[in-house]
């Protein structure tokens, strides 16, 4: 028997259990306050969208969007981009011999692809590798990492997170860096030569400055200790199964070795889509007189280690210049131009409708 009432409230003449909104006893004056808020009379801006205000807005938006779109489109078109698929699916491809390479084939399979740049690449050139049909965004893959291990936490170094399974331990030793992402790190080596009068001039590829600054300096850290003796710091761990070398031997430069190796950091930022590109090397412009990459003959030496054929993947090498808006992407420009045009067009149409109907009605609009 649930009796829902309150003696206190009743004495005040309040109902039971309800949301008696007014306060105070019966004797007290319950006159509501005459405040703007309580009377729902707060001063308010009451915008009314009329054809008069919206139509000019359409024109303005059209007039703003179309130039922006053209600007982006032109910028995007001015970006030089050259792409080579070196997977080697086609039998004619020089890399065809390496197609079925496996992780630990020794010696590594190498192949060379020659190509010609028709136009010079004027500014800094960015060298990417691209993978297709590679699901870096698969859930099992994305979570298979231990960020505290990568952040230099000694506890996690020796006892990696469970998320790293099945790449957590190998032969009873903890893997550093653990997880599927690290384990499948891209390990092809790409070397670019300019063929200058039949001689191959190697082009300097800068391997630093390709990762996010914050990743390189904050998020990724080697285990604490003597930075010059990484081998000792990684004592007690083992290399990822697929790696030929342990993590402390990724590079000779101590600033680019271990967890703070930039190739590694770039790889660890999982891509959004199954077809993606990642920054591999930078080719910096030496002087203002001469383009970074002149038009002409080039050759690409590939140490083909990374098997993609098994999952129907593709590998690419991309050379690209960069503008203020990033790499080549016609989408934005076209979208802006389209939307701007539609706006403008609709503005015109609506204006005509507005005018015609407006005129007609002023004459024939008398209610009976």
């Amino acid at each position, binding site marked *: *028997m*649930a*009796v*829902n009432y*309150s*003696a*206190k409230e009743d004495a005040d*003449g309040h109902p039971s*259990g*309800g949301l008696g*909104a*007014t306060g105070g006893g*019966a004797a007290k004056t319950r006159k*509501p306050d*005459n405040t703007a808020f*309580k*009377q*729902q009379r707060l001063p308010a801006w*009451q915008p*009314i*969208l009329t054809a008069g205000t*919206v139509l000019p807005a359409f024109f303005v938006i059209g007039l703003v969007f179309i130039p922006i779109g053209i600007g*982006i489109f032109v910028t995007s078109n001015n970006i030089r981009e050259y792409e080579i698929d070196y997977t080697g699916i086609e039998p004619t491809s020089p890399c065809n011999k390496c197609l079925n390479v496996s992780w630990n084939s020794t010696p590594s399979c190498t192949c060379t692809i020659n190509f010609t740049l028709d136009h010079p690449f004027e500014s*800094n050139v*960015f060298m990417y590798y691209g993978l297709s049909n590679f699901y870096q*965004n*698969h859930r*099992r893959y*994305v*979570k298979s990492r231990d960020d505290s291990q990568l952040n230099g936490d000694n506890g996690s170094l020796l006892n990696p997170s469970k998320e790293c*399974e099945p790449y957590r331990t190998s032969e009873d030793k903890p893997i550093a860096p653990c997880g*599927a992402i690290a384990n499948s790190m891209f390990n092809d080596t790409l070397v670019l030569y300019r063929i200058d009068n039949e001689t191959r001039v190697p082009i300097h590829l800068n391997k630093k400055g*390709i990762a996010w600054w*914050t990743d390189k300096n*904050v998020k990724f850290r080697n285990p604490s200790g003597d930075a010059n003796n990484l081998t000792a710091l990684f004592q007690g761990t083992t290399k990822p199964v697929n790696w030929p070398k342990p993590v402390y031997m990724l590079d000779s430069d101590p600033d680019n070795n271990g967890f703070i190796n930039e190739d590694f950091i770039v790889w660890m930022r*999982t*891509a*959004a*889509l199954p077809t993606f590109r*990642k920054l591999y090397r*930078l080719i910096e412009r030496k002087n203002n007189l001469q383009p970074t990459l002149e038009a002409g003959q080039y050759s690409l030496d590939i140490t083909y280690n990374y*098997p993609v054929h*098994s*999952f129907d993947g593709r590998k690419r090498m991309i050379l690209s210049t*960069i*503008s*203020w*808006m*990033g*790499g080549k*992407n016609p*989408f*934005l420009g076209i979208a*802006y131009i389209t*939307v701007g045009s539609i706006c403008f067009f609709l503005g015109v149409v*609506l204006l005509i409708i*507005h005018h015609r*109907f*407006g005129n007609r*009605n002023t004459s024939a609009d008398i209610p009976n």
Partner: protein
Amino acid sequence: MCAGEEKRVGTRTVLAGHRPVSETDAYVAQKFCDNRIVSSKYTVWNFLPKNLFEQFRRIANFYFLIIFLVQVIVDTPTSPVTSGLPLFFVITVTAIKQGYEDWLRHRADNEVNKSNVFVIENAKQVRKESEKIKVGDIVEVKADETFPCDLIFLASSSPDGTCYVTTASLDGESNFKTHYAVRDTMVLCTHEAIDSLAATIECEQPQPDLYKFVGRINIYTSNQEPIARSLGPENLLLKGSTLKNTKKIYGVAVYTGMETKMALNYQGKSQKRSAVEKSINAFLVVYLCMLLSKATVCTTMKYVWQSNPFNDEPWYNEKTKKEKEAFKVLRMFTDFLSFMVLFNFIIPVSMYVTVEMQKFLGSFFISWDKEMYDEEIKEGALVNTSDLNEELGQVEYVFTDKTGTLTENSMEFIECCIDGHKYKESISEVDGPLKYYGKAEKCREELFLRALCLCHTVQIKEGDQVDGLIGHLEHRATYISSSPDEIALVKGAKKYGFSFLGLENDYMKVKNQNNETERYQLLHILNFDPVRRRMSVIVRTITGKLFLFCKGADSSIFPKVQQDEIQQTKAHVDRNAMDGYRTLCVAFKELSQAEYDQIDKQICEAKMALQDREEKMAKVFEDIEANMHLIGATAVEDKLQEQAAETIEALHAAGMKVWVLTGDKMETAKSTCYACRLFQTNTELLELTTKTVGHSERKEDRLHELLMEYRKRLLQDFPKNRGGRKRSWMLNQEYGLIIDGSTLSLILNPSQDSSSSNYKTIFLQICLKCTAVLCCRMAPLQKAQIVRMVKSTKGSPITLSIGDGANDVSMILEAHVGIGIKGKEGRQASRNSDYAVPKFKHLRKLLLAHGHLYYVRIAHLVQYFFYKNLCFILPQFLYQFFCGFSQQPLYDAAYLTMYNICFTSLPILAYSLLEQHINIETLTSDPQLYMKISDNAMLQWKPFLYWTFLGAFEGLVFFFGVYYLFQNSSLEDNGKVFGNWTFGTIVFTILVFTVTLKLALDTRFWTWMNHFVIWGSLAFYVFFSFFWGGIIWPFLKQQRMYFVFAHMVTSLSTWLAIILLIFISLFPEILLIVFKNVRRKAQNAPFDPPMLLSYKRMENGCIFKWKPQEVINLTERGPLRILQMQRC
């Protein structure tokens, strides 16, 4: 806890003071519950389990609990925190709220239970806590104290054995009521004396009716036969009422604790659910289906995709041992659950919280409304249920009481007629108080006036703290009565020179025209009851003559008087009724001593009866009040409440059908209906009353004929294919229907042999076609029956009942929305209502402005919530197609959790509290706007589909826009690339901005609060994102958001993409607004709000001729009738 239902039958025996009355009578001690009041639901110990159990009984909470458990058990893409945290938040907030309310109840209970009372034990006064009182204890109560339990009134400090009580906290009536001590114990007014009392009390088991009590007391004096006395409600002092003007009283406890009438009266009301909630549930089902189909599609696609082994397990992404070993069926099932969890945000837990908050907070605006504050009673509107706010905007039928609702219920004596001669106070002659139209014999005149002075239950109160029904007498003395008619009559008599001076020791004092005081001994009062519809007194004059004076409704007096006397008076009464006055007839008869003795015996016998006392009394009264002589009749005006007519007119114009349900008689009710413009001069009236149906045997046949005829007439006028709009009746000839109680019961309960029992359906068809219906002579239950009948018709229209008296409670409880008027007939109506307002005129603002706004607000809130969660989850669904159906969430867990709680919750809440898409003034003055939202217009499938498509479109734009942007993921000017979390963050940023700006586009009323929450939410989102990505969070497994937002912001392309995509998303909305705008312009019917026919203007003497004209409104809303006013 005690007092189960089964115990209510039978009687209980109580020993006064627990003293055995005799050795011979074996007294079996009955067990009664203690005097503890328990209104609280929980104790400290059972609070958690009980409260949790109750909360999880709600289907939505249960659903979220299941989702949470799935997340805990199964390896799901999002951590249990994402859904656990909001659920925990909701549950905690609700628990705290309920806990607090219960704590208040505990405190109030304690205040009552621990208060000190004095109990007489062994001739001594013992102080006890109230909860320790047992049935049978003798309790002493002093002035201004409340009674701790239901007591039988034994003795009082006042010598006449009476006490005054106010029951303000029980039924709201603040006038003093007189209660009488048991006659044989009233002298026992000391501790010692009362302690010597040996008595048993037999009474019925507790029942909730405050005004009914049947019992008997047996008083044992030494070695004598016990004296038996009957006990009635006048002997019972109810817990919760307060003793006034009496020093102290003694009483014996008969009902305690939860068995007191007060406690029994507070059984919870049944919960009313609004139509909006039903719509929400329907939409919820759609979204649940959407959720299930999404999960199914994804699961299926996953396994299709995985059938290719290099997709299922490429070398770079091997499965764990556990995954490999799991059974395929089980794996599929967990995959399905995982997808469910991933997409579960489409059904937002926060919507329930927001809806609740909106309703709770929104209802404050009603009680805060200054315009609904009444200076006279110093009170504003009261909200008892906040669940029904939006229902106020959906009302189709208004059932209103007449007396006290449409009319003021403050009576004024207008005229009287004595033996057919009219006596009227002339208005023009200020000095000459009376104007005689012919004159009756002097003695008849005096008899009539004496009858007016004697035949009533009016009391005289000195002092000024009474705020009930007051009529000022000399100085500060006032008349008090439960019926305003009686005060009007007594005051009327006073105008003619006879004034009632009060009751003293059973003697009524009357000052006559010659300023002499006459004394009459009051022998019996034959109380008024609604069945007899009359009351009588039996008095003895000083000279020893015995008179019975009777007054009552004409229909109940005429059969009881000499038939030859009726004629003259009847004409008068009928004319008065036509004028809208309440008429009462006065009759008398002289009794011989012998007759009186017999009457006295009969009454006493009936009063002593334990069983069926009411029926017996009624029978005795019926017998006594016979063969009387008619003296005359009175006419009392019940003034129309201010603006009653305008309000009714506004409700009509708003497309509502107004039905008047009254207990008054037809003529009076009809004239009131004309006065308040329910019926207009051109309304054709259809009558189904005893007058038209007749009394004869063949009345059923006649009724049948009438029903068929009316139906035929109405159907001719209303061809069936009228476009299906319910409210198109406005175009045609208006019909009004009048029906009375007896005909109604004939229709609802036709006799067995009647050929057709489908009267009810025909009747209903007729009713629904009429613009106005007047039901007179209704019993309270019949009122509820009518409401139920209309409520259950096709399309289940929303009904609203408004009334002020206890007789309206049944219909108030029955209707979808019950409104109580805080009137003069006590508080029962407002107590049982969902909303209480001081006056009928406040209904206009309550419905047209508040109801409209609440409906629009909540409808928008609901649609918006579904919309924003659809475009939240759709990208996540689409992303599955690009991540191998691996349940990879697109957004970070923090965003998933915060989206509904922080980023997008406050703007919509502010909108749903403050939005006024149309000004309140416009809404109130243009009732036709109300029709725009009729039939739940904003929550029909069409708008729902519109919102859903909008959400789907936006979701597609968000996802594919960013997808195409990410065809080249190097979006910074340094060539570095973005990963999947940046992808999600961009989508999320566009999402948050778009849904917030969409709301901004919808907002028509920008107060500073809207500005604050809308821009504040966006700023908070940006701030939060920087903060969330700005720190390496300890204790977090993954640092995936580290500097993602900051990097995103440095990319110009991202900025351009965000702006573009937001614009594209909002584009259809803007376009729609423009199109609507242009079209309205194009069709430009300068839509003047239709003028309302104002009652006031008519009063001012202007003569208008009203010509309803049909103006076809070109908009879709359907033709509306516009009244155009022309001066003639």
